[in-house]
C-alpha cells in the first residue's frame, strides 16, 4: 500500500507541474508541500466516495490554503472525482478550475477558498453540525503556516476545544515560507506547539512528507480537537524548487517542466 501511495504522489506532482506550466500559474511550491498530506487523506483516511460525492455520511475536507488549489484538483482527479482531462482546464480562458477554489467548479470540492483564514472556521461549523447529526463523520482542514497570521484563524482555534470538537482536525502545512518571506521572519509563529497546547488542542508534530507518520497522526484518536503540525518543504520533490521563495510565484517553463518531470521518474 505504501508503495502505491508513493507512486500516487508522483502522479499528482506531475499533474500539478503540467497544470502550472500550461496555465503559467503561480504557487507551484505551495502545491508541492501538501501532496503527501492530500494523498494520505484521499487514498487512505477520508471516508469519501467519488461516485457519491454528496453522501451525507462522508467526511469533509477543506483546503483552506486555496492557492494550492492545483494540488487538490490533481488529487480529486487522481481519486476519480472527475476526469484528468479537466485538469487541462485549470486557470485558462474558457477553463473549469479557477486559480482559487470555487466550490461549484467540480465534484468533491466542499468549500470555496482563496482568501486566507476562512476554512478552519467553516470546518468548525461543519464539525458542530455533524456532531449533532452524523457523529462518525470527521472534518479535516489544511491551513498554511502564513495563514496563522490571520486573526480569523485564532477565533476557531479558541472555540473548537471549548466545544470539545473531537471530530475536527487541523493540519498546518508548515513549509516555512510565505508570500513575501520566511514565515518566522515575517511574523514569528514559535513556539507554535506550545501555543496550540495552551489553547487546549492535542498537537502532533510530524514530517509532512512521511506517509507513515501522516497516517498515524490522522488515525490517532483523542477526545479533543487535534492539530497536526506537518513540517514540510516548500517545492518538495523538485530539487530546484525546494525551499525557494520564488516558487511561491513561478510556474515552470518547458525546459524546467521537463527537468522536473525527469526528477519524478
Amino acid at each position, binding site marked *: 500500500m505504501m508503495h502505491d501511495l508513493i507512486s500516487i504522489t508522483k502522479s499528482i506532482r506531475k499533474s500539478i507541474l503540467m497544470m502550472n506550466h500550461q496555465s503559467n500559474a503561480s504557487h507551484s511550491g505551495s502545491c508541492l508541500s501538501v501532496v503527501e498530506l492530500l494523498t494520505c487523506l484521499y487514498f487512505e483516511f477520508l471516508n469519501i466516495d467519488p461516485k457519491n460525492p454528496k453522501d*451525507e455520511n462522508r467526511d*469533509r475536507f477543506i483546503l483552506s490554503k486555496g492557492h494550492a488549489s492545483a494540488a487538490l484538483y490533481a488529487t480529486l482527479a487522481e481519486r476519480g472525482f472527475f476526469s484528468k482531462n479537466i485538469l487541462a482546464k485549470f486557470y485558462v480562458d474558457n477553463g473549469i478550475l479557477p486559480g482559487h477554489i*470555487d*466550490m461549484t467548479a467540480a465534484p468533491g470540492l*466542499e*468549500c*470555496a477558498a*482563496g*482568501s486566507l*483564514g*476562512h476554512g478552519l*472556521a*467553516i*470546518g*468548525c*461549523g*461543519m*464539525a*458542530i*453540525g*455533524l456532531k*449533532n*447529526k*452524523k457523529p462518525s463523520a470527521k472534518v479535516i482542514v489544511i491551513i498554511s503556516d502564513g495563514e496563522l497570521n490571520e*486573526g*480569523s484563524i485564532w*477565533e*476557531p482555534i*479558541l*472555540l473548537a476545544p471549548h*466545544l470539545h470538537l473531537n471530530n475536527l482536525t487541523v493540519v498546518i502545512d508548515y513549509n516555512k515560507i510565505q508570500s513575501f518571506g520566511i514565515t518566522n521572519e515575517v511574523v514569528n509563529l514559535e513556539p507554535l506547539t506550545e501555543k496550540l497546547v495552551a489553547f487546549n488542542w492535542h498537537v502532533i508534530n510530524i514530517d509532512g512528507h512521511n506517509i507513515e507518520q501522516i497516517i498515524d497522526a490522522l488515525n490517532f484518536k483523542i477526545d479533543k480537537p487535534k492539530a497536526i503540525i506537518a513540517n514540510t518543504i516548500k517545492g518538495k520533490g523538485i530539487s530546484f524548487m525546494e525551499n525557494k521563495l520564488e516558487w511561491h510565484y513561478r510556474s515552470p517553463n518547458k525546459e524546467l517542466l521537463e527537468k522536473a518531470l525527469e526528477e519524478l521518474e
Partner: protein
Amino acid sequence: MRKTFIDTLVKEAKKDERIFLVCPDIGYSVLEVFRDQFPNRFLNVGVAEQNAISIAAGLALTGYIPFVYTIMPFVVMRPFEQIRIDVAYMNTNVRIVGVGAGFSYGAAGATHHSLEDIAIMRVLPGMTVICPGDPWEVQQSVKASINYKGPVYFRLGKQGEPILNDKTSSYQIGKATLIRNGDHVHLISTSNTLEISCKVAEALSSQNINCSVTSMHTMKPFDVNYINSLLETCKPIFTIEEHYIVGGLGSAVSEVIAESKFNPLFKRFGVNDQFSHYVGGQDFIRDKFGINTEIITQEILELLKKEK
C-alpha cells in the same frame, strides 16, 4: 421587532429541526427563550463575528438553516468578507439578522449606528435583503425565509415599532407592499421609517394632498415592476429611509427612474454623507438629520410648491 423576530423563530424552530441560532455574545433578554428550548441548536461563539458567520456557513453546509443574530454593524461590516465568500459566493442558507437599523442605538454612539448596511448587502450577488417596516413584516419574512433558497439578510429595528400593515394582506419576499392608497404623491419607505412615512402622509392629507405609502420591505430582489407602476402615474415620488442616501432605497429607486422614460419630481430623504457625533436617543438624532415627520412634510410641501 426584536421580540417578534425571536418569537417567530421559536415557533418555526419547534416545527423545523434545521433551524439553528448562532450569536456572537449578544442577545441578553432576547435570545434566552430560544437557547433554553433548543440548547442543541443554539451556539454563543463568543465575541467573534467573523467566526460566527463562517461557522454558520459550515452549519448550513451540513443541512442546517443558521440564523446569526447581533447588532447590525457587527454582523454586516465586521465580517463582511466572510459574508461575501462563505455566505454569498458559496450560496449557503445562512440568515444574517442585524438588529438596530439606522440610529436605533442612538446614544450608544456611531459605532453602533447602521446607515451603510443596505448598500453593502444589496451589492452582493445572490443576497436577499429584507428590511421589514413593522413587526408584522418581521413575522411574515422570517416565516417566508425558512424554505427560501440562498442567503438572506434581515435589517431589524429594535423595539416598540407599531404594526402598520393590514394583517390580512399578503406578504411575499421581493414584492412591495402598499400600506396606504393615495394618488397625488408616492412615498416609499424601507425598514424602520415606515411609521414616519405614514405620519407624513397623514400630515399631507390635512393639506388635501393624498399620498400613497409603500413599504419596500425587500431591498433585494428589488421590485422594479412596482416602481415602474408608480412611475406610470406621473406623480412625484419621495423615498424615506434611515440609511445613508448613498446606496440605499433612494439610490435603488433612482436607478429605476434613470432607466425609465419618466422624469418625476423626486427626492431622497435619508441621512447625508456624515457620521453622527450627536449624543442622544434615536428620535433626537433623527431630528438632527431631518428624519422626522415635520421636516420631511415641510420639504415635500416646498418641493410641490416649486413644481407648480
